[in-house]
């Protein structure tokens, strides 16, 4: 059932909100409460503070996810509004040969500007669907979105600062900070090779607009193909370092069992038991229907959704109407680039009354396919199992 409650939310601290209607949720978001952060449309609220808001399914159907519908994810609750005029980005560290500081104007005008279409997906997306259940923000399927990111190559900025031959990792800090100094600040690192990859950007625009505050204004990291935890928002400092960074959010959080998943490895952060979660796994999401939807007999209807992976690109999407015994190819929509998601469509057979169970499975150009079973891991990452919806014709 859809909640029809109207929430009247105050404006204490100037922090959030406006008057919003709960209830415009997609069908799947049934008991979820919608709340609007300033500048955002009502999103599925996972937590008020720090703000953790999920995109409703209906908003994931478009090729590019609107800025005002894009999910919001923070770990720490002190989130200053950064003034783009006084904002500075510092690039330093023991392996930086000529440390420097850039204003937003210098960043924009001093380097070649480039764009990349890429999925930003939280590592914990779908955690709330994991079995057995695991603690953490209980995300549904909407801690993700696809956007056109514009900025400058991190590589160009790092080269301006001079990357010494002994550089091992690059460490990123954003303007957000913890309420208690005892709580580890949110800093992330990347292997130097990934930091120097031509697709890794310092972005200041999203879908042709300046980054929204809640998505990291005035500049954020964009690491196409890697999970959202590396896409540090409100970037303030970058350090090029000759050793592995040992902050809490690298050493103790965002880790999976070593060897459990395919994809890029982050070897300088790996140990015998665990390793950082890195690349997105091949995955898909049905956006047109949710289980329980009814179709009229003879109606023309299409199953549609998105498919994506960690950057090989989507080769095909298959659909099964017989619980996986046979599969047929769905039509793919326009290719927006190998880091973006790829829309798919498949005509539903509504000629007979009765239940219709549709399963969807994506396959990457790297040969990876969505699995049927979850790979257990304590934080509930990488839920990319084949999804199905139970529809009813009649």
């Amino acid at each position, binding site marked *: 059932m859809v909640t029809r409650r109207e929430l009247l939310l105050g404006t204490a601290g100037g*922090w959030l*909100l406006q008057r919003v209607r709960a209830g415009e949720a997609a069908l799947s978001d049934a008991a979820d409460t919608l709340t609007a952060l300033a500048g955002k449309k009502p999103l599925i609220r996972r937590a*008020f503070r720090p703000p953790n808001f999920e995109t409703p399914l209906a908003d994931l159907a478009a090729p590019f996810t609107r800025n005002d519908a894009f999910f919001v994810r923070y770990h720490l609750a002190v989130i200053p509004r950064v003034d783009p005029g006084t904002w500075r980005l510092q690039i330093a560290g023991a392996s930086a040969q000529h440390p420097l500081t850039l204003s937003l104007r210098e960043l924009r005008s001093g380097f070649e500007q480039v764009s990349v279409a890429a999925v930003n997906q939280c590592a914990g997306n779908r955690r709330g669907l994991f079995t057995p259940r695991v*603690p*953490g923000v209980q995300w549904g399927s909407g801690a993700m979105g696809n956007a056109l990111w514009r900025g400058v190559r991190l590589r160009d900025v790092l080269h301006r600062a001079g990357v010494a031959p002994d550089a091992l990792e690059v460490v990123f800090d954003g303007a*957000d900070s913890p309420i*208690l*100094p005892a709580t580890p600040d949110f800093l992330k690192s990347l292997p130097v090779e990934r930091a120097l990859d031509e697709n890794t950007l310092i972005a200041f625009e999203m879908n042709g607009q300046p980054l929204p505050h809640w998505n990291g204004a005035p500049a954020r990291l964009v690491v196409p193909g890697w999970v959202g935890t590396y896409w540090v928002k409100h970037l303030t400092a970058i350090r090029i370092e000759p050793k592995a960074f040992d902050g809490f959010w690298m050493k103790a959080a965002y880790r999976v069992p070593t060897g459990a998943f395919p994809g890029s490895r982050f070897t300088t952060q790996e140990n015998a038991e665990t390793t950082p979660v890195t690349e997105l796994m091949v995955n898909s999401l049905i956006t047109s229907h949710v289980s329980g939807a009814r179709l009229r007999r003879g109606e023309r209807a299409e199953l549609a959704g998105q498919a994506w992976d960690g950057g090989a690109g989507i080769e095909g999407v298959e659909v099964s109407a017989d619980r996986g015994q046979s599969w047929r190819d769905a039509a793919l929509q326009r290719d927006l680039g190998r880091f973006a998601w790829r829309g798919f469509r498949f005509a539903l057979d509504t000629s007979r009354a009765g239940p219709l169970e549709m399963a969807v499975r994506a396959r990457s150009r790297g040969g990876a396919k969505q699995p049927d079973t979850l790979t257990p891991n304590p934080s509930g990452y990488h839920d990319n199992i084949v999804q199905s919806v139970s529809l009813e014709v009649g």
Partner: protein
Amino acid sequence: MKAARRRAPLLLLSLAPAGACGLLWAAAGEEAVRLKDAPGRDLTTGRCILCHSLEYIPSNAPAMNRAAWQKSIQKMKERFGAPITDEEAKQILDYLDGSYSGKS
């Protein structure tokens, strides 16, 4: 980001039954989130509302049992620096286990 940016302390927290009311960092609207009424609620509210809104507790109930709550409280103390005494932790554990252990 460094400590210089951090705003003044928090312990403006009121531990009054209403819990959220005196909280410096409360986000608008979060005062509507209340924990279940049972012995230990006020203490739990007071200690657990410092760094995040209370939704983290009910939303995680399906993933929790007594052992998981014990681990969680320990994580809040040891990893995140939650100021909670051992005696308080015991009472909070009894409350959370009694009210929010939903793991089957």
